[in-house]
């Protein structure tokens, strides 16, 4: 599927296959290969549900539990998003994955000049608790979990989620939220950063510490190798960077006197599925194994469940093409198959129209149906880890493990992940890979159907999601109304307490919950941190 390099002879026979991670694939694998890598069932795989979890986190895989489906959803105002949430749930979606608009992600209120043209465009606009009360209305928060795809102000959103749930009468101990909350990867890939590295990582430490104490069912961080892969790194680098980023957050919390054993079970990961099928399957199996092994070695974690690499394996945005967009339906099905063969615990899929814009209702439902066909129709739930024991898959899994480890060592040599992000080392490497890859596509060295092979010359027109400027007007009006009608004295008091806590390097989470309950705005809370922490300056890489 166009992501490995295929060197062919004049008769179109394939002479050499080189995966993106730099591993060569042989035409035939035999028991000799397993001997060659010293394959040992117990050490390398273990039974499903047993250390090192290469095969699966659960003994019976999808037999005992279907995967959670969590399409990335949100647009316009909280009203539109609430309707779409309920629609997806009514069609069988089992988790939520909230898309916020860019002003919200960047800590700007909808009436900020920086927000112009962006309110409700790529996700839902959220200015205050009022908006969460609308977005999550009539959703059973003790039964359905919500991923909150937000990073720089993830602490604010986790606090707001708690405040909203309590307002609806739920106990904070029964709600399950997973804020993405991975700022280092934003600095490498997705760009929605606000604060400098050190306080930004500390805020993540605050959310983890707070979750340990107060939110037992919340997963405070979802480490997203996904976006680094989207930015151009190889599958092996995706895992190595994600694990190193996770270690950076663990270190922050361990330094506060907690044992890794007591909280790493709450970490989750967000990893990408586009690319070569075999390389991805091997990547996920190797990732589960390495995470468990390294947690044991580095942090002496022993509890079985604390060693689980849990997460969402899905997306595949960079694999989707603007040309011949209906091909993306087919690609999506293969990406979902990749996730299922890899034992994904949760999944989501970029919809076929997302090379253009956020998905229409029809496209989003089609992604959901793709999962349902896989799991309910063609037998992916029948048996756990069906590829286990394959001469090829086991050899490749072991080679991926070595490759991931090698990439981790490269970063540790330059001072570790925090240093490698601060200096721009990782950003430079990722941009270089993206350029080299694009060049190979343009030269036809890697194939992309409809882009550099089997082209049709004309772009097919598809129905697209349309942005409605009325949403911004409505959102701003409601924000003004909120500021007029809330108890402004209480709001100011809560913000002052937040500022004091931030300056004294106290855990800011309880103060954020208070601020949310007083209907202070995302922009007001984010600005407190801007004043205290300052803003991140990107290292120059050109």
């Amino acid at each position: 599927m166009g992501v490995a390099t295929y060197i062919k002879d004049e008769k179109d026979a394939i002479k050499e296959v080189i995966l993106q991670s730099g591993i060569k694939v042989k035409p035939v694998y035999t028991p000799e290969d397993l001997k060659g890598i010293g394959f040992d069932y117990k050490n390398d795989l273990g039974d499903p549900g047993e250390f090192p979890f290469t095969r699966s986190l659960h003994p019976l895989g999808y037999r005992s539990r279907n995967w959670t489906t969590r399409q990335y959803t949100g647009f316009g105002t909280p009203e539109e998003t609430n309707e779409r949430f309920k629609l997806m749930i009514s069609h069988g979606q089992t988790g939520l994955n909230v898309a916020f608009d860019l002003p919200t992600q960047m800590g700007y209120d909808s009436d900020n000049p920086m927000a112009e043209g962006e309110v409700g465009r790529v996700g839902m606009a959220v200015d205050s608790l009022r908006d969460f009360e609308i977005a999550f209305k009539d959703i059973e928060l003790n039964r359905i979990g919500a991923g909150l795809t937000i990073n720089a102000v993830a602490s604010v959103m986790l606090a707001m989620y708690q405040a909203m749930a309590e307002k609806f009468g739920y106990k904070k101990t029964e709600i399950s939220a997973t804020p993405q909350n991975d700022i280092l990867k934003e600095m490498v890939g997705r760009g929605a950063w606000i604060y400098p590295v050190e306080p930004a990582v500390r805020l993540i430490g605050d959310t983890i510490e707070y979750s340990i104490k107060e939110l037992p069912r919340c997963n405070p961080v979802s480490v997203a190798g996904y976006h680094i892969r989207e930015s151009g790194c190889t599958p092996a680098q995706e895992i190595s960077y994600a694990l190193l980023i996770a270690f950076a957050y663990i270190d922050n919390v361990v330094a506060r006197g907690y044992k890794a054993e007591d909280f790493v079970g709450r970490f989750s990961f967000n990893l990408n599925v586009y690319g070569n099928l075999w390389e991805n399957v091997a990547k996920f199996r190797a990732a589960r194994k390495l995470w468990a092994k390294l947690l044991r070695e580095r942090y002496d974690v022993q509890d079985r469940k604390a060693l689980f690499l849990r997460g969402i394996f899905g997306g595949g945005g960079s694999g989707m093409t603007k040309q011949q967009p209906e091909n993306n339906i087919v690609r999506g099905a293969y990406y979902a198959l990749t996730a299922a063969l890899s034992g994904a615990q949760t999944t989501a899929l970029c919809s076929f129209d997302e090379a253009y814009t956020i998905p229409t209702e029809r496209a989003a439902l089609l992604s959901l149906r793709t999962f349902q066909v896989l799991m309910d129709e063609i037998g992916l739930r029948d048996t756990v880890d069906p590829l286990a024991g394959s001469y090829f898959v086991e050899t490749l899994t072991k080679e991926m493990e070595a490759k991931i480890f090698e990439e981790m060592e490269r970063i540790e040599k330059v001072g570790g992940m925090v240093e490698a992000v601060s200096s721009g080392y990782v950003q430079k490497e990722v941009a270089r890979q993206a350029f080299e890859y694009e060049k190979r596509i343009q030269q036809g060295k890697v194939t992309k159907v409809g882009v550099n092979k089997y082209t049709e010359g004309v772009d097919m027109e598809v129905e697209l999601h349309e942005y409605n400027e009325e949403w911004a007007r409505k959102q701003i009006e409601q924000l003004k109304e909120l500021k007029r009608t809330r108890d402004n004295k209480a709001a100011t008091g809560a913000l002052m307490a937040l500022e004091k806590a931030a300056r004294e390097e106290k855990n800011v989470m309880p103060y954020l919950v208070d601020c949310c309950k007083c209907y202070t705005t995302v922009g007001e809370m984010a600005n407190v941190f801007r004043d205290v922490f300052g803003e991140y300056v990107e290292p120059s890489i050109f």
Partner: protein
Amino acid sequence: MAEKKIRVLLGKPGLDGHDRGAKVIAHALKEAGMEVVYTGLHQTVPSIVNQAIQEDVDVIGLSIMSGAHIPICKKLMEMLEEKGIQDKLVVVGGVIPNKDIPALKAMGVGGIFPGGTHFDEIIQVIIGKAAS
């Protein structure tokens, strides 16, 4: 050949942080012999115009993935005229639906490069138009 190198400012206006495309193009233009200044993320139109003046560039390239390309380009073109530097070549790349191309052309945007456009095409347009 003592010909002056074409200077390009690559800008990421707005709040969107997806800059894989901008960085890939920066590499490609540099490899084609141009001088490239990258603004970094989260820029406003005035800050891009100011940098274009300060860096004395021939070309302003915008990378926009969020869907806000029409209002952003409109604002940029107005501001260039205000500052009397409408002679600079403006090109834009990113997630740009075909239906928006005529509107961008009508504003005076000199090159429109949706994701996946070949480097050669981008380089030729820039060399052809920046030189004239």
